[in-house]
């Protein structure tokens, strides 16, 4: 008897507890987070009107389903296509149009490492809520960024699904690449404004990490370069003689032909064997979810036999 009563009571209390949140008005809990500059950022609830100041931020927002909450973007945010129709708030020459940002009445401005502390301060002084997202240096940090932005925008569930699928895709690449014993040496060209001394990516960059993860050896590690973005001469490239050249600057018009016609470059093995590949640099230089696309495409380039 008494046991039945207790059970009934427990059931009753549980029902009440379950009803309580639904019964009161849906008051979103305040969000308190520390941003990449060590600033305390407080939001009354998930952001509804967001201005993104960097392409990576825009890609993150759209990837976790917060695209409809974005009301403004920087000039370089060109992905996904839906972002293109949003009002532009500047970004060229490193400057932003503060008047335009105020006019959009955002409840969150999502800044990135391309923004200066002065810009964050200026926005803050205008009474805007600014969150500064630090660049990730590993996949795990990138997932953490996705989840941070998800908290700010109330998209935790979507972000969780996304992170799990990204993890699975990275794991799939790892499973194909890790057993391999052969790792080609890769020269990743970022910029050849001066074709005799192009820029490449060195240790500490995501490009370096992705090359390794895709089953390659970055040219810079064999050349003994420690700079993150070194400018290298033909001599250094010739000494290491990479097997594969990836043209991250192909969107600026550099092609396998134009590289091969640089004086002296025809002595490289990669040039003789035609192992020069154009590549979408946005996949490896924007610290967002498309880094996983970049990893998959690089792995396909370096080990095509594994993906047949």
């Amino acid at each position, binding site marked *: 008897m008494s046991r039945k009563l207790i059970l009934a009571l427990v059931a009753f209390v549980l029902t009440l507890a379950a009803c309580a949140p639904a019964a009161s008005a849906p008051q979103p809990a305040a969000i308190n987070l520390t941003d990449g500059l060590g600033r305390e950022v407080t939001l009354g609830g998930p952001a509804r009107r967001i201005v993104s100041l960097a392409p990576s931020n825009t890609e993150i927002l759209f990837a976790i389903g917060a695209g409809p909450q974005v009301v403004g973007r920087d000039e370089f945010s060109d992905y996904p296509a839906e972002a293109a129709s949003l009002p*532009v708030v500047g970004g060229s020459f*490193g*400057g932003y*149009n503060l*008047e*335009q940002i105020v006019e959009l009445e955002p409840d969150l401005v999502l800044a990135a490492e*391309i923004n*200066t502390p002065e810009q964050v*301060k200026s926005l803050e002084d205008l009474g805007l809520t600014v969150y500064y997202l630090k660049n990730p240096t590993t996949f795990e940090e990138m997932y953490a960024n996705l989840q941070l932005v998800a908290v700010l925008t109330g998209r935790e569930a979507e972000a969780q699904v996304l992170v799990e699928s990204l993890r699975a895709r990275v794991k799939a690449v790892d499973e194909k690449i890790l057993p391999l014993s052969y790792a080609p040496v890769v020269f990743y060209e970022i910029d050849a404004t001066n074709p005799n001394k192009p820029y490449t990516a060195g240790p500490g960059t995501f490009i370096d990490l992705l090359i390794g993860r895709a089953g390659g050896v970055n040219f810079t590690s064999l050349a003994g370069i420690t700079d993150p973005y070194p400018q290298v001469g033909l001599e250094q490239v010739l000494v290491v003689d990479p097997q594969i050249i990836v043209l991250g600057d192909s969107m600026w018009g550099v092609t396998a032909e134009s590289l091969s016609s640089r004086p002296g470059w025809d002595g490289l093995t990669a040039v003789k064997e035609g192992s020069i590949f154009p590549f979408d640099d946005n996949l490896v230089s924007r610290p967002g979810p498309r880094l996983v696309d970049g990893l998959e495409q690089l792995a396909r380039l370096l080990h095509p036999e594994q993906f047949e």
Partner: protein
Amino acid sequence: MPLPNPMRRLSPFTLSAFFLLLAAVLSIAVGSVFIAPGDVLRVIVGALAGSIPPELEKHALIVLSLRLPRTVLMALTGAALGSSGAAYQGLFRNPLADPYLIGVASGAGLGAVIAMSIQWPYSFWGLMAVPFSAFLAAMLTVFSVYLLARVGRTVPTTNLILAGVAFSSFATALTSYLMLRSTGEVRRALGWIMGGSTQAGWDAVLGILPYLVIGVGVLVFSGHALNLLQFGNEQAQQLGLPVSRAKTVILVAASLSTAAAVAFSGIIGFVGLIVPHILRMWWGADYRRLLALSLLGGATFLLVADVLSRIVIAPQELPVGIVTALAGAPFFLWVLKRAKNQGYW
């Protein structure tokens, strides 16, 4: 004289003040967000009366926290560059002199880039690190150039110019090296070097105001000394001017105001070079007038350039340093071509 007839009858000061006022109004009224002139007026009247109509709150933010401080900062910067330019040209008796001649800009640039290469904590002092370091490096550069150029108790102007140019090249080379070596800060440094206000709000205005008041204040009253210096050092000395001291005072005052202006606004070229020349062509080379007129003219010129920088490729903004040279050079050549008074220098 290229000035239209009726303008010639007005005093140069009335005319300059009028144009400065016009430029300031333009700078407050024009922006990438359109605000009706009536609303701008209501915001300003409301702010003065202490109550802003609630429907204008957003526009009040734009006018009072963005446009007004920017207008004041640009006017102060232009005033500093204009008057320092006139003073340097008089001091060196050289039409090519500008406020950056003896290393203020290259020193400030080096200081700024050094400060940018360090990760400062996000705090008041962390944010002040760049302008402070730029200001300090600019003053140190001028001081070193002064010491290097000194021969006994005199400072020959030729030595000053040569030491300044050599020191500038050295500092610029170091700046370029640091920019190439740095990873993420090139955009920031480049933006600073091309000129334009980097930090919105009143902090920058308050930061440079004391130096400008002292520096420009001294310059405005050194017209008589500069007039005497035009006769050459010996004659000026015979006319009763303590030449060495006067030169040092003018040099310090001009450098102080230029360094303060550069620290917050970046390196804005051409203002300090052409504004004094244009005014000299219009109203003569009497430094007692020219210094004050260059102050007003520099402020007006930079305000107009800044307005242009906002509207040319709106909603993007051009760095104002590009506009001053791009729009300023043709304007200067036009004035030069039309000036009947070719022996003005």
